[in-house]
């Protein structure tokens, strides 16, 4: 009964209990090539849970129970060795280095498997890869490292989110993968400190991710955090400090150029020129507004890690501080993390442990990326003839443009703060019921509290740029998620040939959330100590909403292999979700996959070239339960349809409500059927490895708000109506040389994906999206990939009246210098029927290249990432090349004039009678790029030298991020994610990504 209590009691505080062992064996582990000692080698007694790790001197100490016990020595990069204990008390071992990573264990969800035995498609990123190029968010570390995984930075704003897409865009809805940290699914991983991560395994194909059933459709990213290892306590201190800069500014006209163009634009619009601008040359350079809002921004990261343990308890405790200022003034992101991971062995068969992270992040943002642009756009468009501040200290204000001085914005409209506190953790117990059967139960929590505050002060610059009434708001959200996972695993090798592993389990997960919002106006002062809602005196607003969801699942998996030649994996999951109506709560997600190691067959000729060859194939069914709204299956009464009754001035509100939506009780998850064929090849004794995969992913029952007739008078619910097909090919190869004084590994991967929408529900209504200044730029249509740019084709510039007369009618006011658009249907009028697909934002090809070299303590890492075959809709050029009420890009100096018959850039003009600014190929640019994402040069002090300064290890390094980008794109940065799957690749004047230089230190005490 005592053991039952262990099962049910999940505690953070650990208790020790010791059991005497029969005998102690000690020894030193050395490297076979040079005789140096190897710290951190795993030493376990085979078939038991008893294990330890060599200390910094390479020595170990382990308890064994009999002379027949076998000690297994393993370490990444070295061949595993097994030694029978015998009678000796001292066993020294020398390990020889290994050239493959095939012995590594891969986390596959509810278990681990040897990489060499995988039947599905799984990519892994190791902690070394993550730590070599320091980044604040883990997703960044995955970019370009794994084939089929596309990671896109959404913005250069500190703390900005990233988009992760695994194997294509499977849905127009949320296609984020499922993140699982230490076995517990979490909603996002922005709380994670990448320095705490041990490994990342990415389940890509259905046979691998079907074990996550209704949430596996977009792939699963399994993250394992660092655990302690038995051995002497070590203390690591890692830090870096860096500088970020805006490195690719958009060149705008200077004061004299602007004045010249502005008067020309006025004359073209039959308006009198501005007298002050007549002598434009005297205005000189004027103000570069981008310079006024940007800065060289510091960033810093400090991490202290304590790790160690003994035969019974291991621990890894770390604290991290990350601070980053933005390259646009008034933006920053700070994150503070504490992580405690411990494991404790009680008796021979029971392990109890926990992994907990507590994170607090504080961020201040400047506004960006909405349809009206943000502060960088404001700076680009501002009148350069105006000084930032006048001689008497006031803000410079333009007499000719309506643009606001960006400094007014910075000083008065960026008073906001976002504070997120998050506790994510789990406790687990694992009991070895008998030798081959283990049972594991873990309980996880994810508590998140997000607080936003904002204040909008009173200020007065001019009657236009002012705020008469100050206002304050608070917006709090609280998320509470718990998970309970239970599963048992049975593994046994029958007759030395039949390797069987069976896993079965269940899990329950529930989330509840609530938000609270309050706002008031007319605060007696603008002082910081008065920026509270209760200090406001009028216009009180408040709201409070809550909701939640739950998921109940049963799952199982059988892995069988015969004689290390034939491998079969089959999994099954049954998920029940509260997000769906009673009819469709439950779904079944089976998968099946096979692998055949040809190289282990008898007929395979013994050779030194192709040393390993494995064929893989698999099929599975997955789901996506990201619904637009949680209760579309029910008919909900929505309040707020109020009306006033009574006579002025004594009207009173009559409250009204009604069910605004036609409920759809049949909603269920989006379903993805996926097939994968792959091959793994090892060449030259597995020094050179490669993996290639071909896949087809068919999404059906995609959740869409299929329009219903407007005369029904109600809003549609989502229904399972659309289909999308993704097929692709991905390739990964790596060459490793881990011997001698010059060691290196070189890895390359690429991915080709084709996406096609095959169904959009009854009526097949195409979906227009991607609003840029009130115009839709993308169309998602059957037979095309999602989110294609859609508009007119620019043929050139009208050079004279005759050319206009001979061309289809565009506008009665078309004049020479305006853009000529293509008359697709030949009806002599340019209208909606002349719109065509004008480019795809989805890259045809994405690739990553990663090379690391080691030579006598020097390490050099270079990482390249690139995409090609995609287009970007340069939305901000809507302003910087048109409109007439803003500054122009320098490229507009090459505009059409009678003297300069350009065929590229139209005339400058106040107003736009010809609609030169319509969505057209004019704004569609080549989005391909290749970028040296990181370049790191490090040096590790020789052991002797570091010992003299009382350190075990000291490494210093220098890293440059975004050092060089090769692109034709004219904007700040070609890495443009768009704001959702229906509007990819639209640049609305984003927060530019910085170039960063870092100096770092890794110290082990």
């Amino acid at each position, binding site marked *: 009964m005592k053991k039952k209590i262990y099962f049910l009691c999940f505690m953070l505080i650990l208790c020790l209990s010791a059991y005497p062992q029969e005998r102690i064996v000690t020894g030193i582990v050395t490297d076979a090539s040079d005789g140096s000692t190897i710290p951190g080698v795993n030493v376990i007694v085979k078939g038991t849970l008893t294990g330890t790790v060599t200390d910094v001197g390479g020595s170990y100490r382990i308890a064994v129970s009999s002379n027949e016990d076998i000690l297994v020595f393993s370490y990444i990069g070295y061949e595993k060795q097994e030694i029978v204990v015998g009678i000796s008390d001292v066993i020294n071992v020398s390990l020889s280095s290994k050239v493959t990573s095939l012995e590594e264990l891969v986390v596959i969800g509810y278990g681990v498997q040897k990489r060499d035995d995988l039947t599905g498609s799984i990519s892994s990123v190791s902690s070394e890869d993550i730590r070599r190029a320091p980044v604040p968010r883990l997703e960044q570390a995955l970019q370009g490292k794994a084939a089929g995984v596309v990671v896109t930075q959404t913005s250069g704003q500190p703390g900005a989110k990233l988009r992760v897409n695994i194997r294509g865009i499977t849905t127009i809805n949320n296609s984020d993968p499922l993140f699982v940290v230490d076995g517990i699914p979490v909603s996002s991983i922005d709380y994670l400190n990448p320095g705490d991560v041990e490994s990342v395994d990415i389940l890509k194909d259905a046979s691998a991710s079907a074990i996550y059933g209704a949430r596996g459709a977009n792939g699963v990213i399994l993250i394992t955090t660092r655990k302690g290892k038995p051995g002497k306590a070590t203390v690591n201190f890692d830090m870096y400090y860096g500088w970020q800069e805006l490195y690719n500014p958009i060149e705008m006209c200077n004061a004299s150029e602007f004045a010249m163009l502005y008067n020309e634009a006025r004359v073209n619009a039959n308006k009198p020129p501005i007298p002050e601008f007549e002598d434009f040359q005297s205005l000189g350079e004027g103000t570069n507004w981008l310079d006024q809002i940007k800065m060289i921004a510091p960033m810093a990261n400090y991490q202290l890690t304590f790790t160690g343990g003994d035969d019974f308890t291991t621990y890894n405790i770390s604290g991290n501080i990350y601070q980053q200022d933005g390259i646009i003034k008034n933006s920053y992101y700070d994150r503070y993390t504490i992580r405690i991971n411990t494991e404790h062995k009680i008796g021979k068969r029971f392990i109890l442990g926990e992994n907990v992270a507590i994170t607090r992040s504080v961020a201040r943002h400047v506004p960006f990326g909405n349809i009206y642009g943000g502060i960088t756009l404001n700076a680009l468009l501002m009148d350069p003839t105006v000084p930032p501040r006048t001689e008497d200290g006031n803000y410079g204000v333009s007499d000719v443009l309506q643009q606001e001085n960006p400094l007014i914005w910075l000083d008065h409209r960026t008073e906001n703060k976002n504070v997120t506190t998050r506790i994510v953790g789990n406790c687990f117990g694992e009991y070895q019921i008998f030798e081959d059967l283990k049972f594991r139960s873990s309980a996880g929590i994810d508590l998140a509290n997000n607080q936003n505050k904002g204040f909008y002060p009173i200020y007065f610059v001019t009657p236009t740029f002012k705020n008469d009434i100050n206002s304050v708001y608070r917006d709090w959200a609280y998320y509470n998620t718990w998970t309970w996972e239970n599963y048992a695993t049975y593994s046994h090798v029958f007759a030395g040939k039949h390797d069987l592993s069976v896993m079965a389990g269940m899990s329950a997960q529930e989330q509840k959330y609530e938000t609270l919002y309050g706002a008031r106006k007319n605060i007696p002062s603008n002082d910081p100590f008065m920026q509270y809602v209760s200090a406001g005196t009028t216009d009180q607003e408040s709201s409070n*909403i809550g*909701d939640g969801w739950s998921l109940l699942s049963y799952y199982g998996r059988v892995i069988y292999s015969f004689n290390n030649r034939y491998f079969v994996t089959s999994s099954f999951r049954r998920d029940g*979700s509260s997000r769906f109506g009673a009819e469709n709560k439950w779904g079944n997600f089976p998968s099946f996959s096979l692998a055949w190691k040809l190289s282990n067959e008898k007929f395979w000729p013994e050779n030194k070239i192709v040393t390993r060859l494995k064929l893989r194939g698999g099929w599975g069914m997955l789901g996506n339960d990201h619904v637009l709204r949680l209760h579309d299956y029910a008919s909900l009464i929505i309040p707020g349809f109020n009306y006033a009754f009574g006579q002025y001035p004594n009207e009173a509100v009559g409250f009204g409500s009604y069910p605004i939506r036609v409920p759809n009780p049949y909603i269920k998850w989006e379903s993805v059927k996926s097939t994968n064929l792959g091959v793994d090849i090892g060449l030259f004794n597995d020094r050179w490895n490669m993996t290639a995969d071909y896949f087809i992913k068919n999404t059906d029952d995609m959740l869409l708000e299929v329009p*219903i*007739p407007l005369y*029904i008078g109600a809003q549609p619910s989502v229904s399972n109506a659309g289909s999308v097909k993704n097929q692709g090919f991905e390739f990964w190869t790596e060459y490793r040389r881990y011997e001698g004084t010059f060691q290196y590994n070189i890895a390359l991967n690429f991915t080709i994906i084709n996406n096609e929408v095959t169904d959009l529900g009854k009526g097949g209504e195409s979906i227009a999206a991607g609003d840029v200044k009130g115009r839709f730029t993308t169309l998602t249509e059957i037979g095309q990939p999602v989110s294609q740019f859609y508009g007119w084709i620019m043929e050139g510039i009208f050079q004279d009246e005759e050319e206009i007369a001979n061309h289809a009618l565009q506008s009665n006011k078309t004049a020479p210098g305006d853009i000529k658009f293509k008359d697709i249907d030949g009806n002599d009028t340019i209208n909606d029927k002349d719109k065509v697909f004008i480019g795809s934002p989805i890259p045809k090809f994405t690739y990553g290249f990663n090379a690391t070299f080691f030579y006598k303590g020097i390490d050099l890492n270079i990482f390249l990432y690139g995409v090609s075959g995609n287009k970007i809709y340069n939305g901000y050029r809507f302003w910087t090349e048109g409109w007439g009420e803003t500054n122009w890009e320098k490229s507009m100096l090459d505009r059409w004039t009678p003297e300069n018959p350009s065929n590229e850039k139209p005339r400058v003009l106040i107003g736009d009678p010809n609609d030169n600014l319509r969505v057209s190929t004019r704004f569609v640019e080549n989005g391909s790029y290749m970028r040296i994402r990181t370049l790191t040069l490090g040096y590790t002090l020789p052991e002797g030298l570091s010992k003299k300064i009382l350190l075990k290890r000291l490494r210093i390094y220098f890293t440059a991020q975004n050092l060089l980008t090769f692109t034709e794109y004219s904007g700040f940065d070609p890495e443009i994610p768009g704001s959702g799957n229906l509007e990819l690749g639209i640049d609305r004047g984003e927060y530019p990504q910085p170039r960063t230089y870092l100096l770092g230190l890794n110290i082990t005490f």
Partner: protein
Amino acid sequence: MKKYTIIAIIFALIMAGCSKDFLDKEPQGVLSTEGFYINAENAMQAVNCCYDASRDAWTFVFTLVAMGDIASDDAEKGGSNPSDFFEMQLLKDFQITPSNWIVRAFWANLYSGIYRCNILTDRVPDIDMDAALRDRIIGEAKFLRALFYFHLIRSYGGVPLITEILDPDDFVQPRATAGEVWAQIEQDLLEAIPALPSRLEQPVSDYGRATSSAAKALLVKTYIYQKKWQQAKDLAKEIIDSYEYALVDDFASIFTLEGEFCEESIFEINFATLPPYNVGSQYMELQLPRMFKKIEVGTTDTTAGVWAGWGFNCPTEDLVNEFEPGDMRLSATATFDKDSLCTYTNEETGKQYIEIADNRMSPTGMYSKKAYVPTNQRPQAIGQGGGNAGSNIRLIRYADVLLFYGEACMEQGENAEARWALKQVRNRAGLSDYPTDPDYADLREAIYHERRVELALEHHRYWDLVRTDRGFTLPAWDPVKNGLLPIPQLEIDISQGVIVQNPGY
């Protein structure tokens, strides 16, 4: 065996912990239909939301201005420049297309109102509550449903006729004939009339709700549009003889906030500035001049223009010329440049200012006076955006019914009665019994003239021209389209052609 017992207990606990309702997550803080429509309060909320449907900008606020006035010869579009709401210009030019969003918004908003009425007539009859109140509420919903269909049929022709909650399988419906839609409107109004209170029975706090006379007045209008002159005449006479309504002496006062629900007002779309509730509209903001000048009393110092409204619906020279000399209604209809509009006191400084018209931005040099609201009554002045203003739309006035009565009498050859009605309206405006202009020698012309000046910028003109077959007088008139809007393209696409487009589109 002990081990297995433990395992068994664990799994038993798991199963027990995950009871069946674990996956039933009720929506929080919101009722579902099953828990609603059970008491009088619910019934009241059900009917209030039907009224709310008339508040959306593109149900009546913008659409009536755009179609009733701007599309006619009474007004130019206005706004900040020609491209500001150019959809309104497209309407005027008869260039609007089936995929244009305002065509869709007007249609969708009216049908949203009809849906709310249909839910009410479906659910409320089963509520156990005071029967009289229930009948009244159902009567109000029927009135509103008729009002929404009335606006649909006169703008789009015969439309799908939906009067109940349809099953998703029956969503595709053909267009009903105009006759069927008119019949439904008449039926709803005839059923509403006995259930609704008269104006005199209605408490002030219920102003804004339908009355029996409002239903009758809408029915008069319905008859007039169908040229059912006898029925129109009889029912209009019933309203006149009830003495519930009378023309107020000061024509201009009708259009002040104090004049809302005056003795002459039969039905208004009611708006109010009641923060934090959003029960106002942009009706005032849309038509308020773009800028004013303000002068401190006792000085000649003029500040630069003060930004105000959006400046749409600018009365035309043609409309102004329609007014006879001495017609007191002209100054209550249009503002002219440099008119003194109001005097107000800045409460903080105590200084007095005069607001002066500065109509430079108007394409005609004029703005609507009927939509004008003095500075200190505008919501900006009391800390609210202009978009939440309280000016009502005077949808049906007694003068409108009188002129309909006159028109129906005239069409029936009862010229003496027709002249009586005309005299009522004209005398109040300070004019003689009959127009002195020889152009109006004909009684029909005289009545048409009177409708135009009496109801100018109250959003009747376009449909008056169309229903009396005078649409051809509009410069861009398209006889094939015959004054109707296109059916939204989405309806044709979704119904896969079951819904047929109007001619000319």
